[in-house]
């Protein structure tokens, strides 16, 4: 549900503001991410970056609606969880979302989610200069989700091996992801 920009109209590169579950999400253009981050930190007091969560929306909401036999997704009556969704969620503009969870340590404290969408192959500017704590969070987003971070001083894998192929948290990366030895599946 998009609400009027209201207080957030001054955020550079603003695309929209949503208010859901008592949480505010500010969506900005990736090109203006650093400007928006600086604005929120310096003008709005969001000095604390709590977390960066990258999400892969590949295939999001493409399952058919349940309760109707003959849906294109099909339903296998012998297999649970094949009956689709009850409501198809709103589609996302691009494949990946980067969510920056910000906190203003004030009375009362305020939290906001800064969100930006990118497609595969596009890059997000680094916010390490704005919040130094973004260092490892951005490396994690690169490592597990394969999102290129522009301007990060040390963009190498953090959790996976240096020579690992692929990005495990992507939706097109299978669970397991590597053959189990001596299992006959090699």
């Amino acid at each position, binding site marked *: 549900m998009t609400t009027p920009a209201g207080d957030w109209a001054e955020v550079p590169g603003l695309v929209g503001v949503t208010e*859901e*579950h008592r*949480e505010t*999400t500010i969506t900005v253009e990736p090109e203006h991410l650093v400007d928006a981050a600086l604005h929120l930190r310096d003008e709005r007091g969001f*000095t*604390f*970056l*709590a*977390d960066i*969560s*990258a*999400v*892969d929306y590949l295939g*999001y*909401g493409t*399952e058919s609606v349940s309760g109707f036999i003959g849906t294109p997704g099909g339903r296998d009556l012998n297999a*649970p*969880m094949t009956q689709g*969704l*009850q*409501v*198809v*969620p*709103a589609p996302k503009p691009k494949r990946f979302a980067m*969510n920056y*969870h910000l*906190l203003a*340590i004030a*009375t*009362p*404290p305020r*939290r906001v*989610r800064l969100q930006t969408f990118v497609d595969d192959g596009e890059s997000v500017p680094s916010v*390490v200069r704005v*919040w*130094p*704590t973004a*260092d*490892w969070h951005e490396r994690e987003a690169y490592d*597990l989700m394969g999102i290129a971070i522009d301007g990060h*001083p*040390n963009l190498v*894998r*953090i*959790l*996976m*091996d240096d020579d690992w192929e692929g990005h*495990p*948290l992507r939706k097109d*990366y299978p*669970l397991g992801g590597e053959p189990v030895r001596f299992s006959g599946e090699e």
Partner: protein
Amino acid sequence: MTTTANRPTGRAIYHGSRIPYPTPTVLETSQELWDTGDVMTVNFGPNHPSTHGVLRLVVDLYGEDVTGLFAVVGYLHTGFEKNMEHKTWWKCITYPERIDYVSYQNNEYVFVAAVEKLLDLDVPPKATWMRTLLCELNRIHSHLVWLGTSALELGAISMFWYAFREREQILDLFELVAGYRMHTRYFQVGGLAEDIPRGFYPEARKFCDWMPRAIDDYETLLTRNKIWLERTEGIGLLSADDAIALGQSGPVLRASGVDWDIRRDEGYLAYHQVDFRVPVFTEGDVYARYRVHIEEMRQSVRIVEQCLDRLERMEGEPWIADDRKVVLPPRHELHTSMESLIHHFKIVTEGFRVPAGEVYVAIESPRGELGCYVCSEGGPKPWRVKFRAPSFVALQATATCMSDALIADMIAIVGSLDTVMGEVDR
């Protein structure tokens, strides 16, 4: 260039920022020092008893001074977040507990709270109070493990035995409640998995009577112990501004003089209804972190007592929400009610559905801000779960804290950041 580390003598935390540039987590040896030819690079870990798991630090040494440092993590990466995308919501609850295997109930709670927020589900008061109680017992448990192991690393071996003596009592309480000593999986979406067993309250009371005296014992052993003071005072300095810029939270942040506690300032569970004090110390060193931990244990005992006062008057009240689309029906109904049987079958095989949306829930775990970002498609499994692990962030401060340290201080500093590697690597 001095050969001995510059140790501030006063109690003021340094001026300006000490965060390394350009990479905030990599301390680099200056070219001038490299040119002397006396810099030695030492590998520390990943398997070392004092790394609290498998942490690897690559340290440049000039004599005994640490001049360069970077951390290598990921040795315990088990793909919890990927696995959770392939499990139904109620099966996922077991995973967060194993992420931080020392503060499992807090981890369990944050995920359950995020799902409840997406579902807009109300939890009965008895469950809320019991969750508060267990989270606080778990905080004491986590601090005891921290205290015991950190003191052990600095040579105070008896501390370890005393701390683990009380930890054993807490584990017995967990066993009494949930049947398991660790990874209790006692929180269910909507409330608790079972009613609180009879006999828990008197046992918990006994523990609350005993624990303050035990904490006095710890303080007798350490707080004015000359060796402990020399190993911890003025070591691993972190200023308030640097701590916030590096995203530090919990005891590390409060030891740097920032008065911030999510329990008090944002309020979740029953924390706005109990009386407790948030300890804040301004020295920003390892000793201040130790004092915060000790004081927090005392406050947690107070919270547990207040929870017991409430819970003892709630005998017979519901412990889980009455929402048959999410919560399993009572076991005895399965023999008589067709509806209950269907609900039970559907929840166990398919799982319940959570409306599409995204939430971020943050709580004060023993290690600091533990966040859980959950994104749902509207189906029976999470679309994406991401944990904001406080240990992961705390380790980022290593380079800043070590900026004028000696190699022997490294153990004290890494220990004082209170990291659990399972949580760092997830």
